[in-house]
């Protein structure tokens, strides 16, 4: 090759390299002259959680945690809820309403007063009789007392329902408190997993530099880190949701503070037969149903005397202009129960009574069904918690400790240690979920399976009941 040809070839090669470099610079992943390939491949775009989702994170968490001395307690939350939860107040007003009805139903009828002018213009007179008359209905057969008793009994039903509502609210406050507590713990564990994912990326970069990992591994480690960042964000979001829901149940806007408490503390294992007997005998729903049955019995009694006619006695004094004499008037009236002996309403009351008997039975069966479902959840969670505490977590913790020791002794590679810790932490998250499930079921079982602390407080009349008379009786 002569000199000119050599120079020409060299120039062509240089041009080709420049073209190649310029075309490559437009690609995101291609190395430039200033970027060594290993740097480009081992440096992730971002590695910090702060850059993972700018502007979308809840800053309340950080503010609350900045003052570690202040914490929320479960008892504090329960006290707040007792004062502020609207449904508890609703339930109390349900009682008041029934008492008011009882008062109203027992009031004696007012007397009637009338001015009467009869046969005006007869014989050119002002009228045959003009005068004032006072009339009074005399209620017979103790109807008013029965009506009052009936509504007083309804007030007792409302009282049981108010107790039920208190259970609903308190149970829900407890459950959401534990849910928030669990969310706190899970966030801590997710942060442990995040540190492990960061370590995994650091390790993969180290292995890349030693030829033990390739681009595929780096991409995987980068994406795994981002996925774990999302898990942390999700855990933060969960705390916010749980805390806002807790605030709603309490009925006040609360500033976020860490919650104190222990998910682990729990009573002895709940015995199904014992708790079933307790629920079926003491549940406010059962007690309310039985009270309602008594009220229905009173209603029957009340309707059974409805046909007994009241006596309406009237009397007055007037002037008989035709006779030009002052005369008196007297009337005694009463209904003749020939056709209407209230037999329809009586039958309806009897039907209501039988219906309520079935309602008690239905409530018992419903409680049994809910208890069966809840006890299954409880038992499974208790079994999980027990096994996780006695075997799974200690074993995994020991596996992690042993892998660390093995690494220290140069007998195990670091990725195995990371795997052990990840395994241990993932199981700890599962354990936290099971603790929460156990506590939730425990609260519901001990709290007569009542929840829904923001549903309207139910009234004393069950759905479908016909309040046949617009005026209370």
């Amino acid at each position, binding site marked *: 090759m002569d000199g000119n040809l050599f120079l020409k070839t060299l120039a062509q090669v240089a041009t080709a390299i420049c073209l190649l470099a310029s075309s490559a610079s437009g690609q995101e992943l291609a190395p430039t002259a200033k970027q060594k390939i290993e740097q480009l491949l081992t440096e992730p775009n971002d590695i910090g959680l702060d850059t993972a989702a700018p502007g979308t994170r809840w800053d309340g968490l950080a503010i609350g945690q900045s003052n570690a001395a202040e914490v929320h307690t479960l008892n504090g939350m329960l006290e707040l809820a007792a004062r502020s939860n609207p449904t508890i107040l609703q339930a109390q007003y349900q009682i008041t309403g029934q008492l008011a009805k009882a008062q109203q139903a027992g009031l004696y009828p007012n007397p009637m007063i009338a001015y009467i002018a009869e046969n005006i213009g007869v014989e050119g007179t002002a009228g045959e009789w003009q005068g004032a008359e006072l009339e009074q209905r005399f209620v017979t057969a103790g109807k008013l007392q029965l009506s009052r008793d009936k509504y007083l009994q309804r007030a007792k039903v409302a009282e049981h329902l108010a107790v039920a509502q208190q259970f609903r609210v308190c149970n829900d406050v407890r459950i959401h408190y534990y849910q928030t507590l669990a969310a706190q713990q899970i966030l801590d564990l997710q942060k442990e997993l995040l540190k492990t994912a960061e370590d995994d990326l650091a390790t993969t970069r180290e292995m890349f530099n*030693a030829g033990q990992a390739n681009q595929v591994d780096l991409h995987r480690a980068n994406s795994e880190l981002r996925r774990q960042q999302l898990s942390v964000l999700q855990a933060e979001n969960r705390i916010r949701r749980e805390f806002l829901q807790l605030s709603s149940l309490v009925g006040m806007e609360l500033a976020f503070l860490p919650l104190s408490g222990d998910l682990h503390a729990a009573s002895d294992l709940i015995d199904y037969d014992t708790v079933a007997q307790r629920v079926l005998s003491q549940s406010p729903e059962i007690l309310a149903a039985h009270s309602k049955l008594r009220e229905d019995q009173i209603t029957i009694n009340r309707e059974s005397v409805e046909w007994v006619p009241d006596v309406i006695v009237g009397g007055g004094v007037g002037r008989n202009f035709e006779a030009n004499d002052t005369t008196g008037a007297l009337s005694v009236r009463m209904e003749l129960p020939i056709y209407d002996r209230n037999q329809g309403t009586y039958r309806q009351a009897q039907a209501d009574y039988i219906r309520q008997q079935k309602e008690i039975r239905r409530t018992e069966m419903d409680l049994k069904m809910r208890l069966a479902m809840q006890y299954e959840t409880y038992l499974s969670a208790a079994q999980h918690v027990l096994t996780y505490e006695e075997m799974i977590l200690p074993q995994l913790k020991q596996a992690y400790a042993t892998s660390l020791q093995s690494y220290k002794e140069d007998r195990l*590679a670091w990725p195995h240690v990371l795997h052990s810790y990840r395994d241990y932490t993932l199981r700890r998250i599962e354990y936290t979920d099971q603790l929460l499930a156990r506590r939730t079921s425990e609260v519901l079982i001990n709290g007569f399976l009542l929840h829904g602390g923001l549903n309207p407080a139910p009234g004393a009349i069950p759905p479908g009941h016909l309040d046949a008379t617009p005026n209370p009786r």
Partner: protein
Amino acid sequence: MERETSPRRHFIKSGMLAAASLAAGKTLSAQEQVDPEEAAVPQAGPIATPPAASNTKEGTVRDQYDGFSRFKPSRGNDPDSDYYLGKLVPGFRSTEEGPAPFVAPDLEKLPYVMKDGAKQFELVAQNVRREFLPGYEMDVWGYNGSMPGPTIEVTQGDRVRIIVHNELPEPTTVHWHGFELPVQQDGSMTLTQNPIMPGKSYVYEFDIHEAGTFFYHSHVAMQEAFGMVGWFIVHPKKVFDPPVDRDFGLIFQNFHIKANQTISNSWAMDWSWHTINGRSGPFTTPLVVKHGERVRIRLLDFSPMQHHPIHLHGHTFWLTGREGARTPKSAWIPRNTELVGVAQAAEFEFIANNPGDWMFHCHMVHHMMNHMVEQVGPRIREGANVDAYMTNLDQRPPVDMKHSEGFATPGYPQGMQGMQMSEKFMKAIWSRREVQGMRATWPKSVHGLMTLLRVLPDDLYQQVMETDDVPKGAIFEEIVQRFGTPGTYQKAPMMKMGH
């Protein structure tokens, strides 16, 4: 530097006496470990007797042989010479004294009784605990409480009877590898005999017409991988010429034993532990010889599936034989490294003419370390250590994502980082007489299939092998003083080495 005749004579005499006392001491030591009831049993192989002042050939041993020096690195004047590279340079021992005692470091000899005209040995196949490294006791299978099994040592022409007891939970047989024996004695399971069932015994008996390096092993494949092998050395009726002063035997093996495990996975296709006579470097016992001696090393590769390129530092050796027979001298090959394949034995002979502590090892890089693992994680990160993780197992320290400076060099790290040797470990390493006076840092470089050849002038040999408490580095520094360039020598840092 040529040695003067007069001091040379003095050296030889004192050296020979020392060798004799050493040999006697070693024999005594071996006997002390024999059961008292068997103390009267004659040991295989000759017992060293005080050497004559001359050898059979020329009445004396010389320093120089046709340009080859017994006492300094040299090759000789003529590759065709019998003495080129010390090829036929005799040891100090005469052929009349019989073969040199066979020494397999860290292994015992199997005693025998003479009965009905045969040397009768008893071999018990059983599971064995073997300490590969101090504190690392592994569960393997072997014979008579040892892995590899004890050495059977006989003389050409002997009749041997070996009663094999099977204390294993599964059948076994023993194959006498390399012997031209009657087919019924071959030990090939089901082909030539019924298996030796658990709890049962079997008697092998045959005449030995061969001489050379043989071995016995189970003929169940996985039992072989699990360590069931041992030397079967047959000394020739007529001592090989030129005679050697030292006759060593080393069995190289591989095992796959996971972290926190003591049981080898004999099904594995890779291997994490490497042993020489059942120990891994730096727990292998060095071969200590005297300056100028003729040395034979017999080497058996009984790895399941790994060949070993064996390399000796500081010397060129002659490959004088394979397991089948001693090679005619015309076919001997001078080597620095010899590839020894699975189930092959090789014999190396050389004159130890270069004083010092020399590596003797398999050159497969993955065999030159113990339980090799990837060097990533806290041990290569600045400011990180494993103890910080161990203080709280429920929370781990955060990781610093910044690269250390080493990452400017692709491929970092290649050196094994953070090798930790406990004080107890180091105490065990230094507890052997054979390592006295070596540099304080030597255990850091001897791992896996590695051992050492120590070539010591007579007085230093005596210090190492017959006195106690030789300071670390003292022997090495003395060798540097005498044979090296002391002006450039840098001492090893005196590490915390137990001892």
